[in-house]
């Protein structure tokens, strides 16, 4: 397929922009380009066909089963998009007077209230643009809390090895040093190890719960107690909240800070690079450190407030990815409290049902019952037949299925991490489990064939090593 730069012809184009209806002001000479911008010169027909072709080559949750573990690729109801398209939300300017955007502010306020109820937090801030950004903001709150108390020796964040990989990375980005602790063989945080490493230098503890092997830590209350007694704060990575909505709340389990991934749990499109939304929530004693501006009620109307002097400051321009919040609020209001709980229950039941269908064929190192996802290990298959998790995943493409997450979590070798989500039907789960078993059977009989798959897709196996070692990051103009 040709790139858009390789299409069209010199001088061709289309006029898509309307006439300017305000006076034109030319920027100062020194800011002007010396050379023409090298934009593609294509007609509207060519543009339309180009993107339609690209669209046909992509795979999304609207195309089929997409059990990408840890990513919660649930179906996104179209009504969410309908709401996000309303002109009152799209045709506003971020600097417009507050009195003229009360509806937008109300969306943020209402969503904050709903998410506080779901998480047991006292405040939520929508600035962070995605999950890891939310982690960064949350960790900065912990940093600010200790600094403000002049407890400056607290520089260490404890992270179990079953956490999301972003946890230690975010802690390092926020200026902490990271202590890794191993899991027990059941997949829980090792309490003995935790007791050993907490102390006067502990700033906080980050728990991904349910963790990356799909387990809810049964010692969670003991864990948060140990950390609090040592003077640290507890951080809840809420990326896997899809398993616990309406059932358990981080705020009731001793957590002080939480981030959520609206684009996962609250059903907004993701997987193509965003936009995401990773709001950060906290308990009362940390509210003053949240990014500003905060939205407050004043004399019966909503207004921005930037008074806190100990705030960590802005983490993004304006108010976060607002239209993602509109979609999330639509989802929350459509489902209601009961519906959210049902969504989580079904996510957990679907994962357990699929685990049950697969457990006699596959090695499942942490056999459950699981929460919203589970992990298969193909270590034996690789040893015996030379078929790796990568080969297995590539073969799934030939069956019209998106593969699960592979090679994660790191504590399981040749891992395939399956998260079916609540929006898949029992028929789909059965059908897919059959396909997985068929591929397993083929791996036994004709392992060589699996090294060559996929054979039905437009692109076979891209050279990932060459792409990482010698990336070509921009179009090479002739």
């Amino acid at each position, binding site marked *: 397929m040709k790139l858009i730069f390789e299409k069209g012809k010199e001088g061709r184009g289309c006029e898509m922009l309307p006439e300017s209806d305000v006076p034109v002001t030319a920027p100062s000479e020194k800011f002007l380009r010396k050379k023409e911008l090298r934009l593609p010169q294509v007609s509207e027909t060519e543009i339309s066909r180009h993107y339609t072709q690209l669209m046909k080559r992509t795979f999304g949750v609207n195309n089929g089963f997409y059990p990408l573990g840890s990513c919660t690729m649930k179906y996104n109801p179209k009504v969410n998009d309908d709401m996000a398209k309303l002109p009152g939300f799209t045709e506003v300017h971020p600097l417009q007077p507050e009195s003229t955007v009360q509806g937008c502010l109300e969306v943020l306020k209402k969503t904050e209230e709903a998410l506080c109820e779901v998480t047991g937090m006292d405040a939520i801030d929508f600035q962070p643009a995605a999950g890891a950004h939310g982690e960064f903001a949350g960790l900065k709150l912990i940093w600010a809390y200790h600094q403000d108390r002049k407890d400056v020796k607290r520089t260490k964040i404890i992270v179990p090895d079953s956490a999301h*990989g972003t946890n230690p990375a975010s802690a390092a980005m926020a200026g902490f040093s990271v202590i890794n602790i191993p899991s027990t063989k059941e997949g829980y945080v090792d309490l003995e190890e935790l007791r050993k490493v907490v102390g006067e230098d502990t700033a906080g503890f980050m728990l991904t719960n349910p963790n990356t092997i799909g387990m809810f830590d049964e010692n969670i209350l003991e864990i948060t107690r140990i950390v609090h007694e040592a003077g640290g704060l507890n951080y809840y990575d809420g990326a896997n909240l899809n398993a616990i909505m309406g059932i358990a709340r981080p705020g009731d389990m001793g957590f002080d800070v939480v981030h959520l991934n609206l684009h996962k749990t609250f059903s907004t499109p993701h997987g193509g690079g965003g936009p995401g939304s990773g709001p950060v929530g906290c308990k009362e004693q940390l509210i003053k450190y949240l990014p500003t501006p905060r939205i407050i009620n004043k004399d019966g109307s909503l207004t921005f407030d930037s008074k806190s002097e100990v705030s960590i400051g802005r983490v993004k321009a304006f108010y976060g990815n607002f239209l993602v919040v509109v979609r999330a609020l639509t989802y929350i209001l459509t489902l209601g409290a009961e519906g959210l709980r049902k969504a989580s229950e079904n996510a957990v039941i679907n994962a357990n049902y699929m685990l049950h269908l697969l457990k006699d064929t596959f090695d499942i190192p942490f056999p459950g019952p699981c929460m919203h996802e589970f992990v298969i290990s193909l270590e034996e298959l690789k040893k015996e037949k030379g078929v790796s998790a990568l080969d297995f995943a590539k073969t799934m493409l030939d069956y019209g299925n998106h593969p699960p997450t*592979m*090679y*994660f979590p*790191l504590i399981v*070798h040749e891992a395939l991490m399956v998260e079916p989500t609540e929006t898949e039907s029992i028929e789909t789960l059965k059908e897919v489990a059959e396909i997985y078993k068929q591929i397993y059977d083929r791996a036994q009989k004709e392992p060589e064939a699996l090294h060559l798959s996929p054979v039905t897709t437009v692109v076979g196996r891209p050279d*990932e*090593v060459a792409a*990482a*070692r010698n990336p070509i990051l921009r179009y090479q103009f002739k």
Partner: protein
Amino acid sequence: MKEIFFTKTHEWVRFLTDTTARIGISDYAQDQLGDLVFVNLPEVGDEVTAGDEFADVESVKAVSNVYSPVTGTVRAVNEDLLDHPELINEDAYDAWFIEVEDIVDRAELLTQEEYDAMNA
């Protein structure tokens, strides 16, 4: 060739003298990681501590920390690896990461036999 020892976290160490050694990652480790695409190394003069990370390696699958088998000071760094991380995949025992001097402490080390038994 000097005798080679291993850590439980899959690094190898070869002592040149009692207080100097070369360090790398094991053949088992490179095989598990797959094709390596980036390596981050410390600088000459940096202190390394037994059991603490001193480098990281990135494969198409994941980024992994590399832990030091000894406590000491970095005397030399194998800069070839920065441009050619594939050298580690080709011969893990030739592709040393760092050379350490003034070694004052060691992590728990395994012999080749013990290490092979652990991975069996």
